[in-house]
């Protein structure tokens, strides 16, 4: 009896160690973020100042919303290449309407980019979900379409913030509101994905569409829903970028797509679908934010930053692969 107890304790101690390792692996993005923050802080000490830290948080918010959209797509086993273009297009068309058409109540102005995001996202969702077309091709096509539409409706010009209602710029320009609203959104999305039936069904569809179909979860409807949600987040991202810039530059959204992949993947979202924790994606967003802020302090050109983002995606995929392998080898042994 005594022996058994000792054995049990040994066993549970072993499991505890394993569980801790698994916990570390699953949330590896946070130590990674802290490590990179510390390293970059040693090189550039200004990063350590509380004001600068707030700036990093603030800087991460507009991109963060787009990352949420992309993450939901990846969990659902699809990908949205059009998300960056849609951020730009929804911000631009909303800006043009607010600039050129009077009579839109300012307190309803927020709805504009979100509605356009939703419509365009549903468009993606209709073709990929109901018509069963390949998401890669569909969103590649709409990526180009939204990008072109953005330039057409802008007629080639940046919309200055002075043409837009002050209240429309508020969410993205007020540092405190910006950060808090993002945190609240993340928590809501996390609850949605983990604790509601449609949320879990996103994981189900991402895990295996055929089985989902067999068990009465309709992949067509779910993929339509996934792209619609992604579109809504693209619209919100457009709204926050507008406030952040206090204008709608013609280039808005051009540098969104790659960071969304990098952040999601480095946070442990599986490219095969069906796996990922939205809370960790915040870590991924912050990781990109701190790197971005660091590069800004050194006045690195946007072109060079794009090169950096390209490599960041590659590194993130490698990191993800490595982490999954270690995780699986532990779980298989239990």
């Amino acid at each position, binding site marked *: 009896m005594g022996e058994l107890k000792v054995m049990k304790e040994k066993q549970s101690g072993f499991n505890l160690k394993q569980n801790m390792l698994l916990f570390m692996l699953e949330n590896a993005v946070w130590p990674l973020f802290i490590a990179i923050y510390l390293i970059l802080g040693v090189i550039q000490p200004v990063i350590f100042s509380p004001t600068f830290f707030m700036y990093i948080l603030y800087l991460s918010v507009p991109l963060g919303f787009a990352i949420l959209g992309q993450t939901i797509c990846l969990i659902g086993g699809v990908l949205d290449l059009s998300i960056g273009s849609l951020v730009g297009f929804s911000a631009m068309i909303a800006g043009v309407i607010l600039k050129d058409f009077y009579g839109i109540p300012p307190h309803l102005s927020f709805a504009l980019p979100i509605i356009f995001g939703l419509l365009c996202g549903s468009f993606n969702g209709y073709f990929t979900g109901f018509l069963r077309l390949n998401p890669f091709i569909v969103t590649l096509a709409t990526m180009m379409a939204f990008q072109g539409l953005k330039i057409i409706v802008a007629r080639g010009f940046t919309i200055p913030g002075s043409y837009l209602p002050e209240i429309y710029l508020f969410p993205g320009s007020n540092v405190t509101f910006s950060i808090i609203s993002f945190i609240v959104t993340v928590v809501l999305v996390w609850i949605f994905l983990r*604790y*509601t*039936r*449609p949320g*879990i069904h996103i*994981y*189900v569809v*991402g*895990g*295996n569409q*055929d*089985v*989902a*179909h*067999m*068990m*009465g*979860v309709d992949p067509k409807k779910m993929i339509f829903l996934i792209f619609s949600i992604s579109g809504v987040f693209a619209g919100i991202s457009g709204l926050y970028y507008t406030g952040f810039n206090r204008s709608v530059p013609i280039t808005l959204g051009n540098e969104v797509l790659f960071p969304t992949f990098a952040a999601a993947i480095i946070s442990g979202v*599986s490219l095969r*679908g*069906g*796996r990922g924790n939205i809370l960790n994606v915040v870590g991924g967003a912050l990781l990109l934010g701190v790197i971005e802020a660091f590069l800004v302090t050194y006045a690195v050109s946007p072109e060079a930053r794009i090169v950096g983002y390209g490599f960041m995606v590659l590194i993130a995929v490698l990191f993800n692969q490595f982490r999954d392998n270690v995780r699986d080898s532990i*779980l*298989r042994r*239990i």
Partner: protein
Amino acid sequence: MGHNYEYMKRPLLSLRNIHKYFGKVHALKGVDLDIYEGEIIGLIGDNGAGKSTLTKIIAGVIRKDSGEIYLNGKPVEIKSVEDARRLGIEVAFQEMTLIDSLDIGLNIFLGREPLNQKIPLFLDYNKMYEETRKILKQLGLRTSDSPKREVRFLSGGEKQGIVVARAMLFQSKLVILDEPTRNLSVAGVRMVLDFIRSLKEKNIACIFISHTLHHVYEVADRIVLLSLGRKILDVPKSQYSVEELEEMIIERTMKHDISA
């Protein structure tokens, strides 16, 4: 043919003249089948005989091209898995009803997750894992300790246990078990056979699909043989020994395949 008392009653589910084409392939060529309450049907046949196609039509996974389905004598349309479940038809297709990246509890309740009584759309995780643990324990499965374990780390037999547990939990009028004994140890096979018998005790009908007669013979009330999309044998088991049946199967299959 055999005037078993069961044949005098009205069937639970009747299939009449079911046809199914996959492109040019005529997968089912007018199949009739009656399933009575609490009856165990052993559905056997080679690969490509149409066993899976027929059961998928009953389960609402695919749709028939022509023919009628009656439930308790009334014509019904089974257009989706939800339709089939509403009519009390449960599926236990092996390997095709589990999602590897999700845990055991979510897999058992897949598509039918228990909802919170107070907050709409929210899942009742406590109930889900509690019932999962209970049913796995009832089946004597080792996995009952860890209902949150991801399914991809389970062995073939353990996975089958999950499928059986699901069929058991959502006890319905008709359970379709596709190759439930494949990949199982001797003890596992015994467990499945006991499970099928317990379905019968609860008056739940069961279609037990297998490649071989030997697996189904022990529990089946009736043996149905499909070959190349046609039903070529439909006999009550009680009147024949396993050897007699085997002989009949070989004879009928050869005759049918030569004429086809």
